[in-house]
């Protein structure tokens, strides 16, 4: 296997983008990434795009070809593949791109993620997202995504004594970070009271425990490490990749509060990277709900089970803390265009490692991403370092 580096990154501003269509979002992010890598379209060998549900959000399938076409690369007959693993589609698209370059199959590869969610109403969105769970045996029982994570929260709080305030602190911290991220959907700090007094969505989770509905796209460009300096002075090396699956339904997990696929994917990524937890300067974790961040911190091995709430409360997960989590603002403040989120995590990590994360910069050489599909049926982790 060849060593692989990220040579360019691009990301649209996340939010309710009424003016942007699905394909425009992708083209915007792709163009930014190309510009960043200072390459032209003809140099690209292959495209992977993570997308959860264009079929239901914009009634469009065959996303790989569509994107190749509107990126102006259909004339080159470029191979273009759509990757789907619910909310982990982006992270998985990155892993496919990484594998393509590492294997020697392709040299310059785009890993992208895109989701256009606001062309349908909230009810349809709720239903589309619920399809990331087991439609046959969870969907029919009336699950919603907040509901599933709320059941994790109920179990977790019952077993580990996590307080409502500790949970709220996750959102407060992420909004604080998001306020310093020009691409974030929400750029306004909030207080504990904002979270604690927000509307109940699925007890014990409230509106401010949940990531929002968002449009957005992100794209990154990968190249073999030995060619990376042709394009950039600051290539960011992929140190490790780990992917894992678990049961599609939450009820089939041995432990409701442990996302076992996170444990497995994290361990695989660490093993491949050959680094320790203490070497990691920050993690972009999949905080689709506040409780998800609490579980992720523990399941990735940054503290023992039951301790992430206290860690958060003490400010250890904030920028400047012992293990900063979601310097970008996470899904909570950046927004969560499902297919794009995994790539946005890579975008933030590259910005941080290059030293380009103005206002929220963490001084470190190694960062990590953690992208979750469904309630943890798919998890993809990547570890990156300065080359």
């Amino acid at each position, binding site marked *: 296997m060849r060593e692989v580096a990220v040579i360019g990154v691009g990301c649209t501003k996340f939010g309710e983008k009424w003016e942007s269509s699905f394909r425009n979002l992708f083209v915007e992010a792709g163009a930014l990434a190309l510009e960043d890598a200072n390459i032209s379209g003809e140099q690209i060998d292959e495209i992977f795009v993570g997308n959860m549900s264009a079929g239901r959000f914009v009634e469009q399938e065959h996303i790989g070809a569509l994107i190749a076409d509107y990126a102006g690369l259909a004339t080159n007959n470029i191979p273009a593949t759509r990757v789907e693993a619910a909310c982990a589609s982006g992270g998985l698209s990155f892993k496919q791109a990484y594998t393509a370059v590492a294997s020697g199959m392709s040299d310059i590869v785009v890993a992208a993620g895109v989701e256009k969610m606001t062309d349908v109403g909230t*009810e349809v969105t709720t239903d589309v997202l619920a399809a990331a769970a087991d439609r046959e*045996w969870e969907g*029919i029982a009336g699950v919603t995504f907040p*509901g599933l994570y709320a*059941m994790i*929260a109920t*179990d977790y709080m019952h077993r580990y004594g996590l307080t409502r305030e500790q949970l709220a602190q996750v959102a407060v911290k992420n909004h604080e970070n998001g306020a310093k991220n020009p691409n974030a959907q929400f750029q306004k700090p909030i207080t504990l009271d904002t979270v604690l007094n927000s509307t109940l969505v699925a007890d014990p989770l409230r509106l401010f425990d949940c990531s929002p509905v968002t449009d957005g796209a992100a794209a990154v460009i990968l190249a073999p490490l030995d060619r990376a300096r042709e394009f950039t002075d600051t290539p960011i090396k992929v140190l490790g990749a780990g992917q894992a699956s678990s049961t599609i339904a*939450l009820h089939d997990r041995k432990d*409701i509060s442990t996302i076992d696929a996170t444990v497995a994917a994290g361990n695989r990524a660490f093993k491949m990277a050959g680094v320790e937890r203490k070497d990691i300067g920050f993690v972009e974790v999949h905080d689709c709900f506040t409780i998800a961040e609490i579980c992720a911190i523990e399941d990735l091995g940054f503290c023992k089970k039951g301790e992430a709430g206290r860690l958060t409360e003490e400010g250890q997960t904030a920028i400047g803390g012992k293990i900063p989590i979601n310097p970008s603002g996470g899904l909570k403040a950046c927004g969560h265009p499902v297919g794009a989120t995994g790539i946005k995590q890579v975008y933030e990590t590259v910005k941080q490692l290059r030293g380009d994360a103005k206002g929220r910069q963490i001084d470190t050489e190694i960062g990590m991403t953690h992208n979750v599909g469904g309630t943890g049926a798919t998890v993809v982790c990547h570890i990156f370092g300065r080359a």
Partner: protein
Amino acid sequence: MSVARFWRKQQNRYNLIGTHCTTCGKYFYPPRAFCPDCRRDGKIVEHQFKGTGKVVTYSIIRSSSGNFKLLTPYVLAIIELDEGSRLTSHIICEIDKVYIGMPVKRVFRKLGEEGSSGAIHYGTKFVPA
């Protein structure tokens, strides 16, 4: 859910018919045709669950869509059946009465419908035992 798709699992949903691996003794509801522990060595037979169990975890859903809009707020829970298998279900009870460990039993209810002129789906839900 389309007519054929619902009908295919109708017996399972009406009567809590799951499966049982006679090799390792595990019970599966929702049914599995393949034992994840024994894999090809597993021998799978049908099993009708007694319909009693207890709440493992729960939430109160305050915002929902489709068939569940009228029921909101409602209790959603993961239930462990006495045979050891777990499933997700709407629990019919006062929203402030549910607790972890609450014993429950099965009841026959409407699960939803395909609009006012479409097929009606029936199946199993749970109430406090």
